[in-house]
């Protein structure tokens, strides 16, 4: 974990209000766990809080990493104005626990479920699984056709299946990722999922009891390194808290209260 400037290589819109940004620098060498994230200083001096963004993929040959972020507020809006060759102050990689892509064996299947900008860390996990030849299926949910991204990217990773769901049915099938999930009756050994809290909850509820479900959580963050207690989440038994930034952001679904 370091705080260093990374150079912007590319920053472009890939879906409605959704941007893909590629960064280069030595720090990339330390980025290797899907589910971990970068804490990015927003250029322009009035933002005191950094923004946590998941690593969506890394290319160690080129020394680059790629992020996908949605423009939802002032900070991410400012990020869209960043240009190639600008530098971003990046703290990371952060997160004590990512998706355990080293766990599944080739005779097990992983179901990857991503909602909206929960898709990027899922994609990084898919790359790792694909490298290890672990079979995986992908279910992605988006608001509408304009919001869809990375369908092709997942297909190129030889996913067993890639299902796209949209809220309004304007692309893929109409419905939620849960609808798609329930249609498939073969329970997989693992589920890796990231998306809105309600979706994670529904995935947890719908999963077969034998499936190990890993959820990646989001919360407003201060420090990003475990010092400020901003990003806590209750444990499932409600007797204690975990810190999403350092204990997570990925948790086994029975560790936390969703």
């Amino acid at each position, binding site marked *: *974990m370091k*705080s260093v400037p990374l150079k912007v290589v590319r920053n472009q819109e890939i879906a409605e209000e959704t941007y893909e940004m590629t960064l280069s620098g030595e720090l990339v060498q330390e980025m290797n766990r899907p589910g971990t994230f970068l804490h990015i*200083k927003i250029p322009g*001096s*009035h*933002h*005191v*809080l*950094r923004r946590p963004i998941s690593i969506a993929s890394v290319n160690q040959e080129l020394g680059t990493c790629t992020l996908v972020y949605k423009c939802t507020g*002032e*900070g991410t809006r400012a990020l869209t104005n960043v240009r190639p060759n600008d530098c971003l*102050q990046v*703290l990371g990689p952060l997160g004590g626990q990512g998706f355990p892509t080293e766990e599944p064996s080739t005779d097990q299947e992983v179901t990857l479920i991503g909602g909206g900008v929960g898709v990027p860390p899922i994609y990084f996990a898919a790359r790792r699984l694909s490298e290890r030849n672990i079979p995986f299926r992908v279910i992605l949910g988006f608001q509408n056709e304009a919001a869809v991204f990375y369908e092709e990217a997942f297909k190129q990773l030889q996913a067993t299946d890639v299902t796209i769901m949209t809220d309004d049915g304007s692309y893929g099938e109409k419905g939620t990722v849960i609808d798609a999930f329930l249609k498939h009756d073969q329970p997989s050994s693992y589920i890796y999922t990231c998306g809105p809290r309600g979706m994670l909850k529904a995935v947890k509820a719908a999963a077969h009891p034998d499936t190990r479900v890993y959820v990646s959580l989001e*919360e*407003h*963050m*201060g*420090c*990003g*390194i*475990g*010092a*400020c*207690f*901003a*990003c*806590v*989440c209750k444990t499932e038994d409600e007797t*204690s*808290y975990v810190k999403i930034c*350092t204990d997570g952001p990925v948790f086994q679904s029975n560790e936390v209260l969703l």
Partner: protein
Amino acid sequence: MSERLAVNLPGLTMKNPIMPASGCFGFGREFSELYDLSLLGAIAIKGTTGEQRFGNNTPRVAESPSGMLNSIGLQNPGAKSVRDNELPFLEQFDVPILANVSGSSPEEYVNVVKTLNDASNVGAFEVNISCPNVKTGGIQFGTDPEQAAMLTSLIKEATNKPVYVKLSPNVTDITAIAKAVERAGADGLSLINTLIGMRFDWRTKKPILANEKGGLSGPAIKPVALRMVYDVRQVTDLPIIGMGGIESAKDVIEFLIAGADAVAVGTANFTNPFACLEIIDELPTWLDQLNASQVSELQRRGVVL
């Protein structure tokens, strides 16, 4: 380590006037992975209560222009655990600890102080009478001079270590509170804590923070903090630890001119986790520019006392 930066405050022999502010640095563990904590002037640890506290619901932070709101709600493992698990960890570093103390009742404050009193690296206590983020206790001690004084004397009786009282900016007259706690025996003052603020989410039409209100910190509050340090400096000779929006060595100079003897850096640790270290590194150059050989030459300059 330059002698030029050394600052001596009651209970705190500081290599330089910089300490991380309470609540923005945990108990030092995480930042110790980023740099050597012995480089700091002191460390104000996270506010500690009698028993473990879980704090408020999330979201606990929100942003505002040049500032942030927090409503952590004093989450901490409780005084015993701080004594047994956190303070021993900090002993490996050559840096004095300012133990920030909170509670819902005078008894709880006293209990925390007694529990932490024997930790050898605790140089002094910082009594938080100004936390806006807990339902009971905290802030009412900070808005009423008599309550503030009462609490201060109780704590003074419970420890032989120096006691700094941390004042709330959410008052009509901060000098009245400062004078009251001075009379009650305070050895020093810390100011300021956060200003009470709110943000709303236009989508949900609800407050962003689960706790609705939170404490505003960061550069946005710097002019208010400077004014309060200055005002309090006019009415007391007590050492002042100044804070509120410090981001740079230049900000530190401004607080020293205003009347602070040392400073604490809070929110800036989030913006830049190396903020304290970079400030310490830059201070000598600023002293040069100001023709000051020692930090002490800049202390209490603008002061009319």
